[in-house]
């Protein structure tokens, strides 16, 4: 390199550094993040245990991340080593339960959204003397397994409550967006809305494909001018639906199941009317804590019935209280 080139490089580097320093954001970003949520306090003095949490989550799902945080918080407090694993495929999830049995864990928390595939191995675990709790899905089947308890939402009841609320709000026609074909819980939600509300049309989209979802909903709203409410079944899809409503020039309003950080803002500024929260943090937390209580004190929760974690409606009236926790990624 000749001298003037060196000088030029040095000058450019200096300018870039200065620009980078000047470009620090005064708001948002990592600096605003709170230190890890949940109980940072003491750890139980009970013996160390290993508990497996096995879900049907696909990779990179916000909802399941919150469930996992709740489980981690309970595990930390109860001196439990948590082993998380997940597979959206029924047979593969069943095999993960078998893997947990093989690993001789002290307890298993598992979702039963693919009940027919997973239940045989859940029974196997219980036969092997491993206490099992069920979370999130499988409400109508969990009792047959002999599990300790169920922590989740009755999706049909949550759907019915939503249908009631839509009626109060004076909706005329609802589009219910199913983002994961083959998921019984989502079907039950739409069915519940239909029970109480009647005029519901289900639309199937691929939840892992955001642009595709947006386009599908846009065309649906363009084609059907009578639809005045879109109910999405998770927060991400709801925010996509908001976009689709804009694109279609429709006057339809959007409601959502489940929360996220972005959902808080959307409820605050009124682009989403309300969200039906099933408190995923609580599901993960209770499913693990119930195993600990059973192992250390022989307790069971729920008196043989499901312990419902929802539905809780979040709208403009109570959003302020939820905001803090949603930003920490626990609601």
């Amino acid at each position, binding site marked *: 390199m000749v001298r003037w080139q060196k000088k030029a490089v040095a000058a450019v580097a200096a300018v870039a550094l200065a620009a980078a320093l000047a470009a620090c954001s005064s708001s948002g970003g990592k600096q605003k993040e709170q230190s890890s949520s949940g109980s940072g306090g003491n750890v139980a003095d009970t013996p160390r245990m290993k508990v497996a949490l096995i879900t049907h989550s696909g*990779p*990179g799902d916000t909802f399941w991340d919150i469930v996992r945080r709740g489980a981690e918080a309970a595990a930390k407090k109860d001196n439990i*080593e948590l*082993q*998380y*694993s*997940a597979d959206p*495929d*029924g*047979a*593969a999830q*069943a*095999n*993960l339960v*078998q*893997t947990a049995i*093989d*690993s*001789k864990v002290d307890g298993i928390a598992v979702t039963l959204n*693919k009940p*027919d*595939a997973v*239940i*045989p191995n859940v029974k196997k675990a219980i036969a092997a003397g491993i206490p099992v709790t069920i979370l999130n899905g499988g409400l109508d089947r969990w009792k047959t397994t002999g599990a300790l308890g169920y922590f989740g939402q009755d999706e049909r009841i949550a759907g019915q409550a939503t249908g009631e609320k839509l009626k109060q709000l004076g909706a005329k026609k609802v589009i219910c967006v199913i983002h*994961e*074909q*083959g*998921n*019984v819980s989502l*079907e039950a939600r739409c069915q519940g809305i239909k029970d109480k509300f009647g005029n519901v049309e289900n639309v*199937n989209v691929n939840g892992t494909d955001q642009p595709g979802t947006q386009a599908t909903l846009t065309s649906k709203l363009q084609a059907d001018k009578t639809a005045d409410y879109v109910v999405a079944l998770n927060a991400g899809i709801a925010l996509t639906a908001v976009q689709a409503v804009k694109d279609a020039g429709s006057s339809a309003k959007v409601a959502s199941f489940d929360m996220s950080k972005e959902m808080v803002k959307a409820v605050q500024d009124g682009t989403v009317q309300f969200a039906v929260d099933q408190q995923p943090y609580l599901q993960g937390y209770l499913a693990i804590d119930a195993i600990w209580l059973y192992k250390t004190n022989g307790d069971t929760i729920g008196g043989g019935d499901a312990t419902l974690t929802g539905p809780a409606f979040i709208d403009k009236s109570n959003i302020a209280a939820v905001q803090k926790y949603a930003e920490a990624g626990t609601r």
Partner: protein
Amino acid sequence: MASTITSPASADDRVSARSLGARLLSRPEIGSLVGAAVILVFFLIAAPPFRNIDNTGTILYQAALIGVMAVPVSLLMIGGEFDLSAGVAVTTSGLTAGIFSYQFSMNVWVGVLVALVFSLAIGAFNGWLLMRTGLPSFLVTLGTFFILQGLNIAVTRITSGAVASNSISDMDGFGAAKAIFASEFKLGGITVKIIIVWWIVFVAIAAWVLLKTQIGNWIFAAGGDAAAARAVGVPVKKVKIGLFMAVGFFAWFTGMQLLFNSNGVVQSGEGVGKEFLYIIAAVVGGCLLTGGYGSVVGAAVGALIFGMVQLGVVYAGWNPDWFKAFLGAMLLLATIVNLVVKKRAEAR
């Protein structure tokens, strides 16, 4: 002098016998065997539950779920084609048997046979369309993939009003069918799922067909150079259609396993993305994307590697977020090893 048969002169140097080592190294499955050994040792060290012999059954089962389909997929790839509809075709077959039996209140076996015919028909359709149009198999089977994915969900919804087929577990013939497709037995503390046994049988038969019969030669020839093969009298069209039908047959078998293993219910949305796992198993096992080279045994080892990694990550108690990254890196590594070994072997 009637018998003046002289011993053959010194062998022609063009067909000289190669050393055993060189012959071993030129086998397509050698790279995957080395990889499997490395991964096995790795997880034996990293994951304590992996050392427990009783857990072999779980790992083999995970491998068999991919491995059974990797058999026809590897044959198809050696024949120079591949099938993107293989993953959803499994679900289609399971659904067909379940829905048919339930809707017509037939003995379960009738549904099983109808599903077999339907799966073979899908394979035949893929092969026929491919040979008829001359389109790449990528495009033809991509179309089939979407059609089947849609059919799975739409037909299930029409018939059962939900997204899973109605349970057929209380119908005639269910017990017998379950015994054949999805039972399990104990073997010295190891729980062996019957599909593992079938998998081994299928691999043995397919390897024999590929290496010891005329059909095997035809498959290699059709995949290596279809025009040249046709010129020397290989029925290329029949071979390729037959290979797609083989995929159909195994998709039927795996579909039946799916149906009878989960209480006679099949979730209609499953199977998407599985086709790539079958292809990965075949490629790790030494099959080339260009056809004409590969091995059934290698594909079985590829499936075994897949099963070991998938469950090894869980047994080791690592965060499963990493699994896919691990899988991709392993795939690249395996294919590079295959390439290097192949080049070395050819250079000798």
